[in-house]
Structures are given as structure tokens and as C-alpha cells.
């Protein structure tokens, strides 16, 4: 059985990296889903580039009419909800937090990630243009950079590559790669395969990965809970 993990399952696995009191910035896409899987009783404090800390979940479609407030949005332009203890600040202060190393964990999307942990995620492939936004500051400066991604492109090509072919977001920045088939730690410029999706073998994951994987002595199946 070679099922791949859903986007939600990837997010669930990443949620296990969080800790009580962690300050976390989530990128667009799968990363946003991570907030849905924070264990009960754990306080995770969300940061958004546009200057808010400690806000609550994204407003759902049903809540939109009642709760959407154009002055309470995250960096993806989604409406979010107020939470006791949240606060606001301007963009220079917000990136002082990022650049100053005050963000514990960021979760980002991926176009390509290299065996050294180089991350590329800002260029639109084929369009010749790109948006850097806040991702580059996060990739360079967050204490821990986790990337969330499908293991391969829609065409089946590896997204984990020997060297990135598109412009970098940041070199050697990624700490942990969580995909729909594996969890891989970037350690000493090597890729350490730590967890496999249910039913997947090392060889099968390696076949979808361009650089050679080092297999962790503690290799295990991904646990989501």
C-alpha cells in the first residue's frame, strides 16, 4: 500500500514539532494547516509578518459575515480571530522579531530543497517572476525552519534535489523536511531519513529523492499523534 499522506497529515506531523510557548510563523498552503493540530492544552503563539502576535484561528467561510474584520488579517490576507493576550506592532518591529531570532519555528512551502538545506520557494516557475515577501527573512533567521511539501512535483520530479535549479530563498537554512512520504532532517549538510509514511520503504523514498539519503539508526514509521 503506497498511499501518500494528505496535506492535513503532513500538517499533523509538523504540529508534533511545536512546544508549549513556542512562537511560530506559518507560511501559505500546507503550513497554514498546522495550527489546526496543536495538542489541547499547549499554548502556541502565532506571529504574522504584518504585525500581530498571539491571534487566533483563521475565520472560516461560515463565520465570515460575522467575524471578518479588515483590520485583523494575517500575511496571507486571511481574516483571523482575536485572542486574549494578542498584540500588534508595525512592520519594522515585526521583522526585528524575525531577524533578531525571536521566532522559534517557521513552517514554509517549497519549490525545491537541496541536500545542504538550501531552500527555493519564491520564484513562480515558468512565469519568470516571483514574490519574495517575508519568506526570505523567515528562512534566514527563524531558529528552526521546517518545510512542508509533497515529495515530488505534479510531474513526479523530485523536489528534494542535489542543488536547486531555481533562485534560492536562503542557503543552508532548512532543519526539517516533512513530505507526504517521509520526514528528513538536514544535518551537517546531509539528509537524514528519520521517518517513513506507512507502507513505504527506504528504497522507494530514495527513488523519489535526487540526493542520497542517510538512513537514521532510529528510522521509524511516521507517527501523527
Amino acid at each position, binding site marked *: 500500500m503506497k498511499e501518500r499522506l494528505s496535506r492535513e497529515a503532513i500538517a499533523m506531523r509538523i504540529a508534533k514539532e511545536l512546544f508549549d510557548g513556542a512562537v511560530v510563523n506559518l507560511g501559505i498552503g500546507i503550513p497554514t494547516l498546522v495550527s489546526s493540530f496543536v495538542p489541547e492544552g499547549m499554548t502556541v503563539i502565532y506571529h504574522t509578518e504584518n504585525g500581530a502576535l498571539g491571534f487566533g484561528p483563521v475565520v472560516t467561510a461560515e463565520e465570515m459575515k460575522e467575524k471578518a474584520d479588515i483590520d485583523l488579517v494575517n500575511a496571507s490576507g486571511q481574516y483571523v480571530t482575536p485572542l486574549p493576550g494578542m498584540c*500588534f506592532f508595525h512592520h519594522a518591529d515585526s521583522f526585528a522579531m524575525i531577524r533578531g531570532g525571536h521566532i522559534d519555528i517557521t513552517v514554509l512551502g517549497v519549490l525545491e530543497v537541496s541536500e545542504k538545506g538550501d531552500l527555493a520557494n519564491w520564484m513562480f516557475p515558468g512565469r519568470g517572476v516571483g514574490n519574495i515577501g*517575508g519568506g526570505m527573512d523567515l528562512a534566514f533567521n527563524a531558529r528552526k525552519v521546517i518545510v512542508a511539501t509533497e515529495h515530488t512535483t505534479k510531474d513526479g520530479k523530485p523536489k528534494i534535489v542535489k542543488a536547486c535549479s531555481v533562485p534560492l530563498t536562503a542557503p543552508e537554512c532548512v532543519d526539517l523536511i516533512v513530505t507526504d512520504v517521509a520526514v528528513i532532517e538536514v544535518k551537517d549538510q546531509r539528509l537524514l531519513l528519520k521517518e517513513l509514511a506507512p507502507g513505504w520503504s527506504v528504497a522507494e523514498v530514495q527513488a523519489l529523492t535526487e540526493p542520497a539519503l542517510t538512513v537514521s539508526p532510529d528510522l521509524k514509521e511516521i507517527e501523527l499523534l
Partner: protein
Amino acid sequence: MNKVLQTFDEAVKDVPDGAVIMIGNFAGPGGTPFYLIQALRRQGARNLTIIANTAGGIGLTLDYDDHRVLFENKQVRKVIASFPFSTSASRPSAAEKQILSGEVELEILPQGTLAERIRAGGAGIAAFYTPTGVSTVIEKGKEVRVFDGRPCLLERALKADYAFVRAFKADSMGNLVYRGTQRQFNPIMATAARTTIAEVDEIVEAGELPPESVVTPGLFVQRIVEVKEDPGFPRNLKRSFQVRRG
């Protein structure tokens, strides 16, 4: 010392061709000086340099006429931004076409570097070293220098002739407060321009804003205009303002 003007047209009247203008803008209309932008379109100054997070019309959130209208009206020569392109390949913005054709010059920056360069402009810091961007396209043409083992880029201050900012309330001294995430680039842009023009929901008397809650001290604000109800306001935007005021 009167900073209050009655119309947005009056507030932007003296913007000359070639002016450098900072515009507060991020993810939706909450912190965008919508009416000042509209007035500048009517006023028609050309060859502008726009400093803003986007180049307008990125299609991320509510669809409304942000500063994309200045590109559509061919008033812009150069834009300095971190998120200049539409999020949708099928709906490229006016800026995207003009940038790709070479009609508009783009300087793209990491968002934190953009913000810090603006703050430096307001704070009299000529230049600073940041780690962000080393070994990426951002490095091109910039000095790299290692501090404590970490390579950093030298980035220069950004200043402007005008800053268009959106705030919640102003008092008659020019002190500004912002609502929620409305703050974004507005407070730092207010510090970095020779003439800062604030578009606000309400102007109150000096003393009505708690002195500890002021975010932009009045010395940074030269002109203030209050938003009046406007039947021609874009539908989507109006709906969201109703959400806010309700």
C-alpha cells in the same frame, strides 16, 4: 499650526512629476490609503517612484482598487517592493506587464529589508548590515561583510518625498493610532518622508488619544484628511468597512 485638510485632492495637489512616494499597503484594504491613491490618480503626476510592499493588484484578498491604478494610469517609473507580482498567473497585474516589458523598473527586496530600509530612512541611519539575502539574487551589487562569523549585506536607507499612510484616528497635533493589523508599513513610512499625509477614519481633539497609545507621534505627520462616506466607494471595500464599523 493647522494640519487638517478638507479634501484628498488638496492633500496631493503639490506632488510633482518624478516624486518618490511611499504607500502603506498590505494584504487588503485595512491599512491602505485608498482615497489618497485615488486623488493621486486624478492629479496625474508621472514618472513616480513607488515604495510599497506590493506593486498593487496582487489578487491576494478583497478585490479593490489599490495602487495598481497608478500603474494602469502609467504614472509609475520605478517600484521598490517585496511582493510585486500577482499571485495568479492568469491575472497578471498592470505592474507585472510593465515590469516585464521594461516600462517600469523594479527593485525587489525581502520584506524585512524593505521595512528596515524605510525605518533607517526615518531614523537617520545611513545604512545597515542584515544577514537576509546573502547568496541569493538580493546580494547582487551589494557589499557582503562578515560579522561574528555570519555574512551580511549592506543595505541603504530609503527616504521619500511623500508618504501616504492610513490610520484609524488622528488628533489635531497629527498623532496617529491604528486599529489591529492596520499598522503594517504605515508608522515607519510616516517617519521616512518629507511630507506625510494621513488618511484617517476620524480626527479628534488633542488629548482625546491616550498619550501612551499613540503609535505615530505628531511630528511625523504634516497633513491629515478624514474619510467621509462615499457612495462611489467600491462595493467589496465598503462591505468590509461596514464589518469594521459594525
